[in-house]
């Protein structure tokens, strides 16, 4: 089939029309769409083992059920992205089960172990909020029809995760004492990890094919501000300190961005600013839990293959 003309395709995008099939796409658009879907699918998928390893520490049967339900949602959301990738010509099996752990494209934050119920609910309040900002933007702006429509229910379910995170964070903060100190410690290392989740600042990112192709609508800094605009007031409302404050219409960070992070100690050094090249190198090397989490869903795959 003849590849669609680029000028005609650009005009289609500019008119705000939805793309519905591969035959309408330019090769560049297809490549960028696949890349965006892989990041989304990988992020949802890896959150399942990351959350599971912490949900085991749930303080009640009911809380464990809520944790497990959230994990089930995340797997379903991953499935939506991989299913679309399959329709675009990729192999779901190869993407999930036959990739090297280091080649998964999820945010670095998930590589740092969540080790308690407190850390899990902070992840629900902050990581899921980041996912909510990113997916909400895709849901509103995305030029690829099947994905845009698939996200309607994803957004509704993410709301449930946020609520679990916020309810429990509030409850733990109200409990005071050691419980509240543990919550503050979790926020201390997880907050800056989520801030960097949104990627390079706009001043360093000159061009975004995702924006050109309307795969998303907001820039990294706009999304980061949206996240800060929900998380900072919430944490302040429950008496938890965060290293950012409101200034005029937006939020500013109270520490050098980026700076160095010790993943083993889960500790930021706000006195040691670093370059974005150093951050990228840390991301590429992946963090402590990468291989263990990927093994959790890959290890049994080959056992049950029927060989002809």
């Amino acid at each position, binding site marked *: 089939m003849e590849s669609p003309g680029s000028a005609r395709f650009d005009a289609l995008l500019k008119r705000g029309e939805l793309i519905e099939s591969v035959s309408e796409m330019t090769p560049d658009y297809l490549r960028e769409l696949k890349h965006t879907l892989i990041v989304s699918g990988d992020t949802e998928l890896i959150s399942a083992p990351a959350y599971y390893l912490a949900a085991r520490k749930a303080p009640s049967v009911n809380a464990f059920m809520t944790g497990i339900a959230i994990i089930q949602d995340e797997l379903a959301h991953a499935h939506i992205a991989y299913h679309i990738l399959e329709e675009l010509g990729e192999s779901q099996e190869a993407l999930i089960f036959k990739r090297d752990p280091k080649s998964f494209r999820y945010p670095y934050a998930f590589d740092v172990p969540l080790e308690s119920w407190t850390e899990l609910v902070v992840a629900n309040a902050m990581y899921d909020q980041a996912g909510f900002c990113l997916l909400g933007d895709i849901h509103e702006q995305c030029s690829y029809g099947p994905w845009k429509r698939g996200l309607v229910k994803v957004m*509704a*379910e993410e709301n449930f995760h946020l*609520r679990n995170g916020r*309810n429990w964070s509030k409850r733990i903060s109200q409990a005071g004492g050691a419980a509240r100190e543990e919550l503050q410690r979790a926020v201390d290392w997880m907050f800056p990890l989520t801030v960097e989740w949104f990627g390079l600042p706009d001043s360093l990112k000159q061009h975004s094919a995702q924006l050109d192709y309307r795969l998303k609508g907001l820039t990294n800094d706009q999304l980061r501000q949206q996240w800060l605009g929900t998380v900072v007031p919430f944490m302040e409302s429950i008496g938890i300190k965060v290293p950012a404050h409101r200034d005029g219409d937006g939020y500013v960070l109270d520490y050098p961005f980026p700076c160095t992070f010790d993943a083993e100690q889960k500790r930021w050094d706000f006195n040691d600013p670093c370059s974005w090249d150093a951050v990228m190198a840390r991301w590429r090397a992946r963090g402590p839990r990468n291989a263990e989490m990927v093994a959790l869903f890959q290890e049994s795959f080959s056992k049950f293959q029927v060989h002809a």
Partner: protein
Amino acid sequence: MNTAVEPLSRRVWSALREIEDPEMPINLVDLGLVYGVEVGERTVRIELTFTAMGCPATEMIMEDIRARLLSEPGIDEVRIDIVWDPPWSSSRLSLEGRETLLAWGLSV
């Protein structure tokens, strides 16, 4: 029936109608989770069920009910009794609730 408590009972039902299920865009009454409301002297007893025993939102729903009803004048105590008999099924949805869920993409 004591006419003095009748308005309270009506207020309880309409307050329950304001509470949305945490997972679906439908209120608890239209979803059919409320089996009964009994109003006493400044107390309310609710008979409540869930769509499944494994419902992950039971605590959230009960927290919402307590918070909402305790904000209602004349109520100092809320007791929630969870019942599984008769089991919930989609036939318990109100007509309005059924239309909402259909529009949201659930087959009911």
